[in-house]
């Protein structure tokens, strides 16, 4: 059934008891927030408000206020959309795919990664909606007969597949996350002293009892939802990639896109998890739960998916050159891109996504908290450039040289993007303050089964 390795360090360090786990995770909720939290959330909220102002300005004027032109008619908007959806892949991958593979180290990471996923997908959904220009017609994406007769939405279109994929992914991830949260809210409900907190967590915990039948159902639901969410994770970014792959633009029209986009999404999603988790680990004193081993495992996933992405780049570059088609000379992976006016964007992508993450192959670097964090930020930047390159570089050399142009973002482009980062961090900081940031019930279940037979002398043998 379950074989314990003698050389694998325990997943939870120190001599923790069940009560200690509850106390450690509840501490930030019960205590006063540190000043740094107030400073950070103020900054995040100001940036968020600026983004909201930009979006309202956009609604009043139309999307002409973006830097788009006739040749480059998709740019930062769709770049940001794909970037955020990609980031939103890590949470469900960690909690669903790693659950199916029985990877117990996921339990210290999954709660915050899922929260990150949900906030990232909300940010992603903002962009296609505001990109419509007339947001009040957003209901046109639903299969409703329009007012001119019975003309329906087009189920042949990748853009409509996207509507279904993103909305399904978002709602299923939300439900999956919340079902896992219910027992932990119940823990807080039975623990907090302040009246408003008691009321809040009573409401949020839905009257959870924790009896044997409830736990049996809980485990069944977790398993089946994981089974459903796993193909969902892979389908969502496949569908996003089909927005490009089913078009006829050179560089976009490529059968490699779905697997390549999924690998890229996991790559960027894990990077964002690292970025947030390593800060949270220090700020919320979770060193015993998020250990060096967790960071190394995550970095290994980053290395594998980064490797897949690198192979995809090489394939695209080679096939573009080998086809001998002149239009392929200016796709995002081509000699034209590497030497042309957008060479800086091309090399930013290669350096941030291939060269610097390559350092993770050194064990010293991938087990270092600082370097893991620094590299994760570089990957976030690199993956933004990947989407920017795919969209703008493939478009900027149109079929006729008279249409050749460059893209310059307007202040609204920049403000909207920064604004979504602000909203994302505001939501994440609220989550870190008021929600149990580790999956309490799951961590308690591995407390005694992890590392009992550990023979290493670096760490004390966990007590029975």
């Amino acid at each position, binding site marked *: 059934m379950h074989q314990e390795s003698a050389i694998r360090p325990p997943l939870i360090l120190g001599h923790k008891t069940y*009560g200690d786990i*509850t106390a450690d995770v509840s501490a930030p909720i019960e205590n006063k927030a540190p000043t740094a939290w107030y400073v950070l959330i103020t900054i995040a909220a100001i940036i968020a408000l600026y983004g909201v102002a930009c979006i309202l300005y956009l609604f009043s004027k139309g999307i002409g206020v973006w830097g788009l032109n006739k040749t480059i008619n998709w740019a930062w908007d769709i770049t940001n959309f794909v970037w955020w959806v990609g980031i939103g892949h890590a949470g469900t991958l960690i909690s669903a795919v790693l659950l199916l593979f029985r990877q117990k180290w996921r339990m210290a990471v999954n709660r915050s990664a899922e929260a990150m996923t949900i906030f990232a997908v909300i940010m992603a959904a903002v962009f296609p909606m505001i990109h419509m220009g007339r947001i009040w017609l957003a209901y046109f994406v639903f299969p409703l007969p329009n007012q001119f007769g019975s003309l329906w939405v087009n189920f042949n279109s990748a853009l409509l597949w996207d509507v*279904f994929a993103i909305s399904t992914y978002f709602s*299923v991830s939300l*439900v999956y996350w919340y*079902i896992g949260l219910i027992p932990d809210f119940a823990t807080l409900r039975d623990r907090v002293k302040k009246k408003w907190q008691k009321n809040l967590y*009573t409401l949020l915990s839905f*009257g*959870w009892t924790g009896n*044997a039948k409830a736990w049996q159902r809980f485990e069944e639901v977790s398993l089946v939802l994981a089974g459903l969410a796993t193909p969902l994770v892979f389908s969502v970014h496949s569908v996003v990639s089909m927005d490009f792959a089913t078009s006829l633009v050179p560089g976009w029209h490529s059968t490699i896109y779905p697997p390549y986009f999924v690998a890229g999404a996991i790559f960027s999603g894990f990077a964002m998890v690292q970025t947030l988790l390593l800060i949270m680990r220090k700020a919320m004193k979770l060193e015993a739960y998020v250990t060096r081993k967790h960071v190394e495992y995550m970095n290994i996933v980053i290395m594998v998916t980064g490797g897949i992405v690198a192979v995809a780049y090489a394939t695209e570059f080679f096939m573009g050159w080998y086809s001998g088609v002149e239009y392929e000379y200016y796709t995002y992976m081509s000699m034209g891109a590497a030497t042309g006016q957008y060479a800086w964007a091309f090399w930013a992508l290669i350096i941030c996504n291939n060269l610097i993450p390559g350092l993770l192959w050194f064990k010293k670097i991938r087990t270092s908290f600082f370097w893991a964090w620094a590299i994760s930020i570089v990957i976030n930047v690199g993956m933004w450039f990947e989407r920017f390159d795919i969209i703008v570089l493939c478009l900027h050399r149109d079929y006729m040289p008279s249409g050749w142009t460059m893209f310059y973002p307007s202040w609204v482009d920049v403000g909207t993007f920064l604004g979504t980062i602000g909203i994302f961090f505001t939501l994440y900081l609220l989550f870190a303050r008021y929600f149990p940031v580790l999956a309490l019930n799951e961590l308690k279940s591995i407390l005694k089964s992890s590392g009992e037979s550990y023979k290493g002398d670096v760490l004390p043998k966990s007590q029975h």
Partner: protein
Amino acid sequence: MANKVIYAVYEDPELLKDAARKLVTAGVHVRDVFSPFPVHGIDPIIGLKRTRLGIVSFMFGIMGLSLALLGTWYMMIYDWPMNIGGKPNQFYYQNVPAFVPVLFEFTVLCAAHGMAITYLIRNKTLPGMPARNPDPRTTDDKFIIELRTEDNHGHAPEAITGMLRDTAVLEINERHY
């Protein structure tokens, strides 16, 4: 004789399982077990049947797939066929490959949400429900066996508490109701 409910508190899931096994072997009916996390292996001991939620999910999935098939057929083939990029719209089977993403997503949507809603209703965990666990410590670090005298007419309450004292019990609480 007034009905009594006995709560035996344990500190470890393994100790609780040993105790439950002992009680059940002696013919005592265990009403329920409360724990802060799933106690693996307790279900067969106290005689819980496997949940049928997986089947529920499958049925909702089938329902979602059927609805999606019907909807895409009605909208794209029957009601208002459109020639889009030369994709065949005469017969459903010719056009269905283009609908696969939507069919899949809608199946998952219905299966996941149908199951989640059924789960919440069956567990009676819904917004606004009050806390119903017997002891607030069961969501922290204590494990409780619930026994009722009305389930165990063959045993005197004293005999049951005596049996519990022989296990690694932390405390025994009794409540009349």
